[in-house]
């Protein structure tokens, strides 16, 4: 990839300008395929917002971040992706938000349905159910998952993916916990995931990069 800088011209510059307009707040850049001072300023602003050295040159790291959809979400008004056109399982997962563990001897029947998609077939909503939730969501759109209750079972499932909305994210914490959920986005400080057994329910959660690292992202093989 040829780095784009001030003076560059052509369709790749136009593509860059479209990406910048998508990912940045504030004035919209004119998509004229000319890398001028305004495009350079926008590149610097984007680089700074996502923690890349702000040199105003769209090189490998900048393109990678733009194509992965990395956005600066410190601005509370900046919308995060809610779904992905090619990940119908995200729509299924979103509909489940709010399904929550119940107290004591009672178990949420919906969570037991999630459990029924794994070989463990747990009968309690106290048994970790993040992997069961991913299996269940995929099954609803006709995709066979790992059928395992273990988050790590997803490490070699499907094919490797970049971190993008809908990808299955396998996470590991510095305390030794492993978790699996659907990736929504990534900010400078957080992974944004939609999953089950996040604070005892299905919800969107932030996983701080100080304590969590991704072990991999996977995508179904259609």
């Amino acid at each position, binding site marked *: 990839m040829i780095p784009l800088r001030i003076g560059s011209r052509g369709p790749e510059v136009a593509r860059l300008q479209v990406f910048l307009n998508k990912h940045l707040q504030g004035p919209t850049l004119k998509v004229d395929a000319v890398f001028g001072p305004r495009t350079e300023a926008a590149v610097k602003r984007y680089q700074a917002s996502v923690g890349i050295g702000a040199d105003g040159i769209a090189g490998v790291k900048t393109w990678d971040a733009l194509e992965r959809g990395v956005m600066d979400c410190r601005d509370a008004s900046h*919308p995060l992706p809610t779904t992905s056109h090619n990940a119908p399982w995200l729509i299924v997962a979103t509909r489940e938000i709010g399904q929550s563990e119940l107290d004591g001897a009672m178990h949420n029947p919906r969570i037991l349905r999630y459990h029924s998609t794994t070989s463990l077939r747990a009968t309690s909503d106290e048994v970790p159910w993040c992997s069961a939730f991913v299996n269940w969501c995929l099954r609803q759109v006709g995709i066979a998952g790992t059928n395992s209750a273990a988050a790590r079972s997803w490490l070699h499932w499907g094919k490797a993916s970049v971190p993008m909305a809908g990808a299955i994210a396998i996470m590991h914490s510095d305390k030794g916990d492993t978790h699996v959920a659907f990736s929504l986005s990534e900010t400078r400080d957080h992974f944004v995931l939609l999953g089950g057994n996040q604070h005892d329910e299905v*919800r969107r959660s932030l996983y701080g990069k100080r304590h969590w690292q991704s072990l991999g992202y996977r995508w179904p093989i259609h």
Partner: protein
Amino acid sequence: MFIRAAAMTLILLFSVTSYADDNQEAQTYWSRFRRAVLDHENETIASMTKFPLWVRGTVDGDPVICYSRKDFDLILKRLLDQQVVVSDRDRVEIKTMLQVIKDKKQLTSSDFRAPNHVRVELFRFDKIKGTWLLTRGYLEE
């Protein structure tokens, strides 16, 4: 057509009114709780909290820490200052819990996980012996 529309409106109004009646106590509690949070009245918030307060991180493996009234002010600040992902119609945003509480004037049916159990993002409230209380706080990290 008009009669059908009117009937549908009446049914809808009846459902909403019924729901509001059923959950009026929770709404009254929430309004007081919200006001106390926005006014930084920690004593009032504490009086609406079950002690020891159960606090845990994201995953089951995170340790549960129970806070007494003595340590409540500090953990309350941490719980309110933390960022959470929230959705409002088609928008998904990151806000602090304080902002979530500020923006949430009314409880909705989706906040009720069970008849006596309400979740507002990372705060959990339960009706215990006829009284609504803050019973759990979750931390994002």
